[in-house]
């Protein structure tokens, strides 16, 4: 199986201190990969590098076996979609207009959406339960609704690879589960690979095929959730005591920080 995305010895710095150092991994088609790690570990920077918004100081990123830097932006947008942590839109675009922006790279520069583009956009909105917001202005919906609209926009790009930066920050439990079900289904039916920065280690344990544990800009561990989510590795990365036990409902793992109570 050839890799869809390969990162090799990535290094990046905002100033003298490196944010990422010697980061290497590969993602194959259909894989669900989670990126975990403490605050400031370089997770968001990694997403921006992989999206081609930042250029690495050294190292290489290959998308479908071609260096990412050689692609035109339009061609990247047809293969790779990004869902940001949060995006304020200060203009009254309707939710459907925003989702249709995901089709821009598939259309000629001034092209109006064709029947197929509309169908793809509306199907994505249906999947994420935002179809009813179609004619609502995006600056007038809640944070969770906006996040789902932006995810629908990424799905409308019909990418081979989805990059998500904490996709569930603003979402309630039902929608957290819903989004991961949608992502899982995409990976099975279309072979879409997903790389997702996750704050919630329990979600990471349940939904990901593989995890990348970052700490201080370096890869501490890569592997299946049971290989990465150990009390020892997490304790070292997060610098706190962690409980890792079985999740009886799903067969995956449960991770909890250990809080000592006095008395």
């Amino acid at each position: 199986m050839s890799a869809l995305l390969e990162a090799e010895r990535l290094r990046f710095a905002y100033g003298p201190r490196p944010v990422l150092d010697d980061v290497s991994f590969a993602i194959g088609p259909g894989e669900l990969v989670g990126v975990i790690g403490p605050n400031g570990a370089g997770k968001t920077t990694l997403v921006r590098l992989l999206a081609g918004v930042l250029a690495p100081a050294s190292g290489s990123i290959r998308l479908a076996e071609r260096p990412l830097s050689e692609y035109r932006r339009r061609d990247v947008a047809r293969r790779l979609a990004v869902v940001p942590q949060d995006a304020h839109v200060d203009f009254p675009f309707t939710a459907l207009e925003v989702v249709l922006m995901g089709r821009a790279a598939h259309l000629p520069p001034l092209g109006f959406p064709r029947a197929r583009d509309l169908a793809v956009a509306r199907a994505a909105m249906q999947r994420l339960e935002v179809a009813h917001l179609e004619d609502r202005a995006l600056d007038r919906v809640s944070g969770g609704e906006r996040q789902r609209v932006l995810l629908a926009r990424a799905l409308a790009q019909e990418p081979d690879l989805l990059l998500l930066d904490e996709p569930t920050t603003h979402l309630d439990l039902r929608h957290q589960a819903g989004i991961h079900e949608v992502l899982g289904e995409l990976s099975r039916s279309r072979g879409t690979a997903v790389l997702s920065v996750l704050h919630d280690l329990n979600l990471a344990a349940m939904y990901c095929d593989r995890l990348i544990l970052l700490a201080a800009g370096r890869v501490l561990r890569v592997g299946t959730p049971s290989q990465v989510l150990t009390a020892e590795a997490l304790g070292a990365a997060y610098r706190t005591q962690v409980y890792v036990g079985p999740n009886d409902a799903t067969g995956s793992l449960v991770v909890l920080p250990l809080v000592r109570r006095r008395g």
Partner: protein
Amino acid sequence: MTLRPPYLTARRLAATTAVLAALLLLSIAGAMLVGPVRASVWRALTDAESTDHVILFRTRLPRVLLGAVVGGSLGASGAALQALLANPLACPHLLGISGGAAVGGVVALIAGAEAISFVVPLAAFAGALFAIGVVYLCARAGGRSTPYALLLVGVVFNVLASAAIMLINVIASYSQAHGVLFWLMGSLSGQSWQLIAAAAAYALAGLAWLAAHAQDLNLLATGEEGAAQLGVDVERARRAIFVAASLLVGAAVSVSGMISFVGLIVPHLIRLVLGADHRLLLPASFLGGAAFLVWADALARTALAPAELPVGVVTALLGGPFFLFLLRRELARAAS
């Protein structure tokens, strides 16, 4: 607003643009009839030697058409700058871009370029382009320009521009200085047909260039990083939009001086009614801005008749409070 369908179709674009163009034509015709002196349309049309003809077709028509070109340029450039900076408070005047264009124009005027119609707009264009570049580079941080940074940089740039103009004025002769002052206050009167034609050519070139980037502007309005991820070559698009917006601002400032807030008010109102898609917003802001300034100027020449207000005073008195209202709303949203 739910008055509009959830996305723009080619048909709605064509129909809406046609309606707005018709409204502009009506405004031009209507505003020609407004003025301190009453003139008979019938006599003006039938007798080319009559005073009525002179008033309507040699005094008012050029002025009204110039108002349309200037208003349209400011409206469309405002819409484009707001999208480019992902900031609804951007406008060529507040960003100091009109100031930059004015410096360019004043230098050309003092150098005696008045005789050659297309040189003043060209100099104003160069000044606008320089200003856009400086303000943009100074106000940007992390791929986004906050309202705070933009306004501050714009204010500073405007102060610099006025100082430069005052300096030039001191050096220039008295009669030149008087002309410059009148021009700066924002006036649409007494321009030649050649200058109007030159400004219109610059403005339409700028508008066409912007319109070619309408989809890029849609994506840029949601943020530069997002636009790149959706397939926009941000660097290229930004350069093109800078040049096109400078053409528009240069065209406007070179023939009318400093007219503020049109580029802020008009795109806002159009967005409220017609939505944010720039394929429609750009032509609609041009046509709407044209009609707006045509009527603002009609007000300027009648409000204190027989005395005449510079139209820049009218737009500033209307736009200032509107801007404060928008700023309040923006700050409240940022705080929440």
